[in-house]
């Protein structure tokens, strides 16, 4: 038959011709280059500029350096000069960028309609509403009718608010923090005569006892205390300092203790009281005065050692040993959490812990009352109750809210938002919607702290400066400028002569300069302070000597403790703060939601921790929704069986269960505040936390829990290893060497190795992770997300096991569900990498410097490499994960943003390696050890991660792997990982 040209052939030819024509005329780029009109002094295109400022994610006030690249801030790191955090930062600090770039921030001023919908208005309209409202109040002439509720602010802004309120005939500035530590302050007043919070010096202590104080999570200043804790725990000639934790739940802090003394909420006091009885009764401490004995007697009145042991379940023997350890130590330190809502008898516990320190002369060096924390300035929650009452009575005509969200963080039984509805004018300066702003009439969005000028003192002698590290992202204004403009409008420029809040700040610092550095010109003083990030003791030349405690004999009159019977169907309850959410303000930061909780490994959600045995006996499985009822309220939460609580205790994290906090705070379950009564504890003026029990009822629904751990246990795989201190010392004395498979040419063994050794030129990068230092806080993971454009995938994808983290911290329980080990797992950059040999397109390949490269543009997504990786560190992009505008402004331009179908993994921060090599080349030398480091190692508060060159025998990594604690994960597979671990050192928790 003749070859006819049918329709199909015709189309085929036409298609071909069309393609050829298209290929012939390549299209223009469609890209544009936008020049500056006038250049800025400090921006070089393509190069980062670092600005020093202060982190305001919590009251700790760490110094940060913000990396600005082409006008956008892309990363924050700790300021190495700052005395609080010395270059380190926690995950909340790293995620401050998600506060800045949060897509749920208000685009500009809004007016709330009657139906509760925010409607955009102009700044002129907004300011007009504000000034008219205030003008009306001033006309009516009543005092104290305007109230400012803010988070903890200090320095110039606080002074200015006081001045402004003075002009408005009011004195009502409430510094509201949900974590106000009233019991701790009250107890310090009783024991030490100072109603405040001192600086604790964990690094000076040699024995540490924590009564519920989670100083590695949120307590007072977690980065500072994590740094000090690492110093405290470093093994020395006499051994390793001991740390005991007393509390109801295995928290992150408890997981780092030698021994967790399980005590029900409120029983911490009994344990402390038991120790005090042993100390005074058995004369373990000499030189206890008769007055001190009287003080102890008044505190432990009505208690006996037997009753304490029976009531708490902590044996007399244990109490005696704890007391003995405390007495024997040279500088013991006892800390109490001092949060009124988390445990009953918080004031008593704090007083008992204070008294323990007061009795031991060596403790005085560990508590520094000179460096009083600014947290002591926070108003007690009683002040909020007064406000609530005044609002109910119609005595408040205007409330201005700054970064305060009491409608979420106060117990719902307070009905704070209902009281707020009685106020005729509620103005919120909140940058984004929250539960309190929902009740506002007017929203005038304030700058985020990273866009603002200001100053903040975390403690006496340290003042950090805040400077805008980039231009405003949204149409917001500085809160000081909003008040200033309103003040000018109402009172005229004579009363408010300053042009802007910046000028007020400069004036204040001129005075400060005259006081602190009299000889220095004001401009120089200011410039130096801004460059450094603030001023601290060094300016005055004083070194912040620790004070002796002004101990005073006290007579305590706490109510008697009733040691009641325990009902098996009822549970103790504890709500605990977590390192990621603080008081709940972190819940709208996607990184903090995505990075798993260190202990439970849960992402994106609230949960209730229940002992697995209890869950089994109640026929509850993972994810079963239960209602938890207290006498004062009820909450719902899905059950997560975990051996972190005793069988008779339930624990719910604080910070989830938001109703109006943006698109990322999706976890609707479990705000533990829902179980608390509405009263105030007269003892400390904090939230009332009576001793109560809760009941649990199954609801019949199941909520999937997105947790990322595969198992609670190691299943004998010995990933996270440990060594007893004795064995370590013996090995060291006998000159034991670790058995390592070096990822270097000398590690080549023809009997074992199939492939020839890799040659390296100058550098072979490697990492050492000290498991004895790692506290498992997850700061490194957050830093990695920020540095490497790691995608946030959300709850649904995590449920399918598709999280993208390049670095994860694996959590393993001990064989009997006791003790927790943390095991950070980045890519091992193996010398014999199993991923490299299976890729059909050579997308993973071995670089000259030992890195295991993943070439994204070469990858075709077979996923063979991930299958063959024994460490499971490779992550596959199932989708092109996007970031809603303006979250994408945070992306690091030095790192490719990966797309669908591509494999990715830890790169050892190759962009930093390249940068460091350029820097070295500019100076005509090789890269020096410690000159740069990876993002994870940079931020680690405990300095657990060390990065460096294995080819250099003098580098820190090369020296550290000489230690016989060194090992490699799954080394029997002969992958020759370039990540080395140092075994954790364990010791007997209590000496006999």
């Amino acid at each position: 038959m003749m070859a006819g040209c049918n329709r199909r052939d015709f189309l085929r030819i036409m298609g071909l011709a069309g393609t050829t024509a298209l290929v012939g005329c390549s299209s223009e780029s469609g890209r544009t280059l936008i020049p500056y009109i006038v250049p800025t002094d400090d921006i070089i295109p393509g190069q980062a500029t670092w600005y020093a400022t202060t982190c305001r994610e919590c009251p700790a006030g760490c110094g940060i350096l913000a990396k600005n690249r082409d006008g956008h801030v892309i990363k924050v790191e700790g300021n190495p000069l700052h005395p609080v955090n010395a270059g380190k930062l926690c995950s909340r600090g790293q995620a401050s960028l998600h506060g800045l770039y949060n897509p749920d921030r208000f685009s500009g001023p809004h007016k709330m309609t009657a139906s509760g919908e925010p409607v955009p208005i102009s700044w002129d309209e907004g300011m007009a509403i504000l000034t008219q409202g205030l003008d009306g109040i001033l006309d009516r002439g009543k005092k104290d009718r305007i109230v400012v509720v803010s988070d903890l602010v200090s320095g110039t802004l606080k002074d200015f608010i006081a001045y402004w309120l003075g002009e408005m005939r009011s004195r009502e500035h409430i510094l509201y923090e949900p974590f106000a530590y009233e019991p701790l302050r009250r107890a310090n007043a009783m024991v030490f005569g100072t109603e405040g919070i001192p600086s604790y010096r964990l690094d000076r202590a040699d024995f540490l006892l924590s009564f519920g104080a989670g100083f590695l999570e949120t307590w007072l200043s977690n980065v500072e205390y994590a740094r000090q804790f690492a110093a405290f725990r470093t093994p020395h000639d006499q051994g390793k300092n001991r740390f005991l934790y007393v509390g109801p739940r295995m928290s992150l802090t408890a997981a780092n203790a030698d021994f967790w003394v399980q005590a029900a909420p409120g029983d911490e006091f009994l344990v402390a009281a038991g120790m005090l009885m042993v100390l005074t009764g058995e004369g373990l401490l000499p030189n206890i005065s008769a007055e001190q004995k009287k003080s102890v007697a008044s505190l432990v009145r009505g208690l006996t050692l037997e009753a304490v042991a029976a009531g708490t379940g902590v044996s007399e023997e244990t109490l005696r040993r704890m007391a003995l350890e405390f007495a024997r130590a040279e500088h013991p330190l006892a800390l109490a959490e001092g949060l009124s809502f988390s445990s009953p008898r918080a004031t008593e516990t704090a007083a008992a812990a204070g008294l323990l320190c007061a009795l031991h002369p060596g403790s005085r060096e560990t508590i520094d009352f000179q460096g009083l924390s600014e947290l002591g300035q926070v108003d007690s929650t009683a002040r909020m109750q007064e406000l609530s009452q005044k609002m109910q009575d119609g005595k408040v005509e205007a409330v201005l809210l700054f970064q305060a969200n009491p409608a979420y963080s106060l117990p719902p039984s307070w009905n704070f938002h209902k009281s707020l509805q009685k106020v005729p004018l509620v103005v919120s300066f909140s940058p984004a919607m929250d539960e309190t702003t929902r009740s506002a009439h007017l929203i005038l969005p304030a700058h985020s702290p990273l866009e603002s000028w200001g100053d903040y003192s975390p403690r006496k002698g340290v003042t950090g400066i805040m400077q805008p590290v980039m231009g405003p992202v949204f149409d917001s204004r500085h809160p000081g400028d909003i008040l200033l403009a309103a003040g000018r409008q109402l009172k005229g420029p004579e009363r408010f002569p300053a042009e802007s809040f910046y000028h007020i700040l400069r004036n204040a610092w001129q005075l400060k300069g005259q006081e602190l550095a009299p000889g220095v010109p004001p401009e120089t003083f200011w410039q130096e302070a801004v460059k450094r990030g603030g001023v601290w003791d060094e300016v005055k030349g004083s070194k912040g000597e620790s004070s002796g405690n002004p101990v005073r004999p006290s007579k305590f009159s706490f109510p008697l403790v009733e040691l009641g019977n325990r009902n098996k169907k009822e549970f103790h309850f504890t709500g605990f703060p977590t390192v990621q959410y603080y008081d709940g303000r972190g819940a709208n930061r996607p990184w903090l939601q995505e990075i798993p909780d260190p202990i439970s490994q849960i992402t994106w959600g609230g949960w209730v921790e229940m002992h697995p045995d209890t869950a089994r006996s109640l026929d509850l499985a993972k994810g079963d929704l239960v209602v938890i009822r207290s006498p004062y309220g009820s909450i719902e939460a899905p059950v997560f069986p975990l051996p972190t609580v005793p069988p008779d205790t339930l624990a719910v994290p604080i910070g989830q269960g938001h109703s109006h906090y943006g698109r990322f705070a999706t976890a609707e379950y479990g705000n533990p505040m829902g179980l608390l009564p509405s009263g105030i504890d007269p003892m400390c003026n904090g939230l009332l936390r009576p001793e109560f029990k809760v009941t649990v009822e199954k609801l019949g629904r199941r909520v999937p829990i997105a947790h990322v751990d595969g198992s609670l246990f190691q299943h004998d795989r010995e990933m996270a290893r440990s060594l007893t201190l004795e064995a370590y010392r013996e090995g060291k004395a006998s000159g034991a060497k670790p058995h390592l498979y070096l990822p270097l040419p000398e590690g080549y063994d023809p009997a074992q190795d199939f492939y020839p050794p890799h040659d390296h030129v100058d550098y072979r990068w490697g990492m050492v992770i000290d498991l004895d230092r790692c506290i498992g806080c997850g700061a490194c993971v957050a830093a990695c997300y920020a540095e490497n454009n790691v995608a946030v995938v959300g709850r649904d994808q995590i449920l399918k096991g598709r999280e993208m983290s390049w670095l994860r911290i694996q959590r393993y329980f001990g064989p009997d569900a006791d003790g927790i080990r943390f095991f950070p797992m980045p890519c091992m950059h193996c010398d014999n990498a199993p991923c490299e040999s299976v890729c059909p397109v050579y997308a993973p390949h071995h670089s000259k410097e030992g890195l295991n490269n993943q070439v994204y543009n070469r990858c075709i997504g077979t996923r063979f490499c991930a299958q063959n990786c024994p460490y499971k560190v490779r992550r596959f992009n199932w989708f092109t994960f996007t970031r809603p505008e303006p979250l994408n402004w945070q992306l690091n331009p030095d790192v490719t943003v990966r797309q669908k179908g591509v494999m990715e993994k830890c790169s050892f921060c190759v962009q930093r390696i390249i940068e460091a090599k350029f820097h070295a080349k500019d100076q005509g030398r090789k890269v020096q050890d410690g000159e740069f480091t990876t993002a994870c190692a940079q931020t680690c508060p405990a300095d657990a991660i060390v990065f460096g060159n294995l080819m250099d025998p003098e580098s820190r990594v090369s020296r550290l792997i000489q230690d016989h604690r060194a090992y490699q994960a799954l080394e029997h597979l002969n992958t020759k990982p370039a990540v080395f671990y140092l075994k954790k050192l364990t010791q007997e928790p209590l000496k006999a």
Partner: protein
Amino acid sequence: MPAGTDERHCMEAALHFRPSLGSGQTFRGNMAETREKKWNLALRYSGVGVVLLLAATMLYFYFLYPQRELGPEQPILFSHRLHAGVKEINCKFCHPFAERSRNPGIPELQKCFFCHEHIITKHPQILKERQHYDTKTPVPWVRIFYVPDHVKFNHKPHIQYAKLDCTNCHGEVKTMDRLQKVDFQMHFCITCHQERKAQLDCWLACHH
């Protein structure tokens, strides 16, 4: 007759009850075949014609189109030939960061008026530029040189360490009024990297 024909007939008959056609009954069938052939032929010729036409068009646009020496048109008619060639202004006057940063930088509008405050101030293009400057509206220059997003190109090592001349990659800018695009395919980079023994590692060089 081959074996099995009968069988097929039987099958067809059984299945379709269709009477088999004799040879005298194929007239209408032949007519249809001839028409189809003609149609096929016409299609083929027209197809080939269209292909030739398209190819000719393509060749014309590729090689003969009068503006092929020119790059894309810019919002303001700026001539590199005039500035860099005739007036011999150094590249780094306008692109000052090439030696020390990833990006060489493009001149801010203010820089144009360092000279044009005094030179041909009434030229229509300068007036247009002036309008941008006065209204603080940036000029959206069309980007000519770029690499894909998965290539992390850095000017600094090329200019500072390798001492390359700008023309090595960007062509004879001094002779071009409108800059012509250079197609930076990977072989463009790798050939030079191989010759000069520069970094050949994927990650440490470009693709991180």
